[in-house]
């Protein structure tokens, strides 16, 4: 059964990766990153249950905390960029291009 959980996690991770590469709205890209983090969390919890030790759940917990901090910073950066450029599309951010 654990490998079924692993397959689900892999599928979710791949969908997240594809979305990360395809989408252009910075917000949706961010959500795809969250999806990949969730897939990794699922794997942590599945293996924690498989081996009967709680360290995996501990790791998933820390991933959630770090993801929360990351979302706060990332979204405020997106809001800041939107305020100056009126767009959340990653194609619009070409000001650093040489």
């Amino acid at each position, binding site marked *: 059964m654990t490998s*079924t959980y692993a397959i689900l996690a892999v599928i*979710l991770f*791949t969908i997240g990766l594809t979305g990360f*590469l395809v989408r252009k*709205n910075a917000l949706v890209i961010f*959500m795809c990153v969250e999806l990949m983090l969730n897939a990794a*969390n699922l794997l942590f919890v599945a293996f924690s249950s498989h081996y009967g030790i709680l360290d995996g759940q501990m790791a998933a917990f820390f991933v959630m905390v770090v993801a929360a901090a990351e979302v706060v910073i990332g979204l405020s950066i997106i809001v800041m960029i939107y305020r100056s450029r009126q*767009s959340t599309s990653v194609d619009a951010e070409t000001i650093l291009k040489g």
Partner: protein
Amino acid sequence: MTLMITGTEVTFWICAVFAIAGAVGLVTLKKPVYSALCLALVMVSLAVIYASLGAPFLFAVQIIVYTGAVLMLFLFVIMLVGVNAQETLTETIRGHRIAVVLAGVGVLALLVLAVIQGANDTPVSAGPAEDNVTGLANLIFSRYVIAFEATAALLITAAVAAMVLAHPERIRAKILQPDRAAARLADYAKTGHHPGPRPSSGVFARHNSIATPALLPDGTVAPASVSEVLADRVAIASADDLLAAHDEVLAAIDGGGNPAVRALESGGAEPPHESPEKEEKGDD
């Protein structure tokens, strides 16, 4: 897998379908709000899977932190930066989508093969002896106590950073009350625009709404006494209407034979007490 179907397996298959459907929706739907709601579906499904895997603490944390806090923050920012912002569908790099889909299929095949090769479905142990929450608490405050304290510092740092980043810079100096007063007087010197407050709306015996204009001493309407918005949207009473009401009241009083009013009508001295006419005329 055994032939016997357990509750955990049923939960898994139902939630797996929802999670994958939500993930596909997240990637394919055009509006960011729909993407966020699909992500909520994925997160709730994963929370249920956590519960079925014997991780009630993570179930609660997943719902509260991810679905409750992170996702609501996403929705909040979507509301801030424009709900209807649609993505451009043109490809900036040619063949981008096809390459991404190929890469996705490749990564999926690689990872699935790795999982199948390393599959070992017999559980290693029967599970932890102690309660899930108790066990996690013991771990947090013993082996992971340094990491736990570090996350506290991390969250504080993130909160401060968000405040600093999202705080808008003041581009021009704040306009203070003396500056406003000086600007009003300069405007008065240049254009003759009255620097004081505008006249209030008319308060009469029969009308006192803000849509009632004040009357000037010559009996005409004072245009500045009614807001332009109201003047555009509501039928403003004309001076004739107001004067007609005034005359009607006067006629009624005359019928009653009030000597003070009659004296006033004939241009005599001020009546000793307030009359309705006085109320109306004393407005402007």
